[in-house]
């Protein structure tokens, strides 16, 4: 069977009309984009708080389910009481929150790695984490790279790269002995 050319039927709507569909759709899309980009939706769309914002929330943070994000402070990791509990400080360079976490941490967990912990603030000022997530930065290094710099290598949360470097930043971080 020979395949005839596909007919190009004139649509029922003429081009002049469908053009307005395009203009209207583009207008809606542009308005939505501008609203999201410039409309301050970020104020209401918060994935995690930094230590400073968590402190600022005060008593409101107690009992509420919150995500806290930041960097694991140098040398702060130590085994907590219990079998797989873990205690460490989360810092953003300006504020620090002590976190008590349950469960085995992801294998990338180490000093200066970015973390997002989900849990709640307790009355004694420590954050009780139910869920520990590790975030990594956008750097990918091969073992033999000439330009590997321990300091930049250890900067693990992109948000913190612009922030003041936390204390003892020059100390080469070593993988902490995490109680498991």
């Amino acid at each position, binding site marked *: 069977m020979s*395949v*005839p*050319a*596909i*007919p*190009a*039927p*004139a*649509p*029922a*709507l*003429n*081009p002049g009309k*469908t*053009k307005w*569909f*395009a203009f*209207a*759709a*583009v207008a*809606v*899309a*542009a308005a*939505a*984009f501008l609203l*999201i*980009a410039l409309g301050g939706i*970020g104020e209401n*769309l*918060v*994935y*995690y708080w*930094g230590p400073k914002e968590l402190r600022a929330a005060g008593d409101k943070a107690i009992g509420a389910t919150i995500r806290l*994000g930041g960097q694991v402070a140098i040398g702060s990791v130590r085994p907590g009481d219990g079998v797989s509990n873990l205690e460490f400080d989360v810092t953003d360079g300006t504020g620090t929150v002590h976190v008590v976490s349950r469960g085995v*941490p*992801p*294998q*990338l*967990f180490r000093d200066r790695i970015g973390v*997002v912990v989900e849990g709640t603030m307790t009355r004694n000022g420590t954050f009780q984490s139910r*869920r*520990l*997530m*590790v*975030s*990594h*930065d*956008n*750097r*990918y*290094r*091969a*073992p*033999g*790279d000439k330009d*590997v710099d321990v300091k930049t*290598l250890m900067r693990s949360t*992109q*948000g913190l790269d612009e922030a003041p470097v936390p204390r003892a930043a020059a100390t080469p971080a070593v993988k902490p002995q995490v109680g498991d």
Partner: protein
Amino acid sequence: MTTRLESWAPKALVALGVALLFVGSFWGLAKAPGEVFMGDVQRIMYVHVPTAWNAMLTLTFAFVCALFSLFTNAWKWDNRLEAAMEMGVILSLLLCMQGAIWAKPTWGVWWDWDPRLTTTAVLVFAFGGILALRAFVDDPVKRAVWSAAACIVAFVDVPIVYFSVRWWNSLHQMQSTPETVSKAFHWPLRINAFGILFLWTGLVALRARVAALRLRSEIAPPVPEAPEGKSAPTGARFSGGDR
């Protein structure tokens, strides 16, 4: 009428894409070194990142098709729109799945509702929804106009996915640049990116041809064996209401 070029070029693109994916994946899995901290887990990057680039590219092509479809009313743009949106949904879904596989050993979770992940999931559902809309509308003209308009609106999520890691706190890291990725990882990434590009381009061309053939049967149904004394009015050809 399909010319010779139209008949073999898409298949050649598919073959080239698959070949490049073999080369790039072999390079990435066997030749390139593992990442300093992540080790072998990082190797999923060689499909995840090219999939992300191409998902954005496919949906951008769908957006362009939607505009051309509405401005020119040429059916070929509607056929390409359908093909591109299907490919965009497939790539976005693959992107989420690959991301989950990468996230479990690195972040410690398969999924979390962070801005990057959430907006990417929205891509899957938005464009999947438009495909469902197309499946439900029988009139080819209404289908073309409505889905093109919906595609233009849904496309707004594509730049939001891109900027999500810049605008908001997220678990997902920011975009890497060639400076932040070791040179040892560049070639497998590039090769696989072009592999997926050629693969989807070829598949979209083939799928658009299928859409064109279906459209032809819709707008010019076979003449009934025994015409009931009246010839089919030309105006009824595009109504499609009886289908």
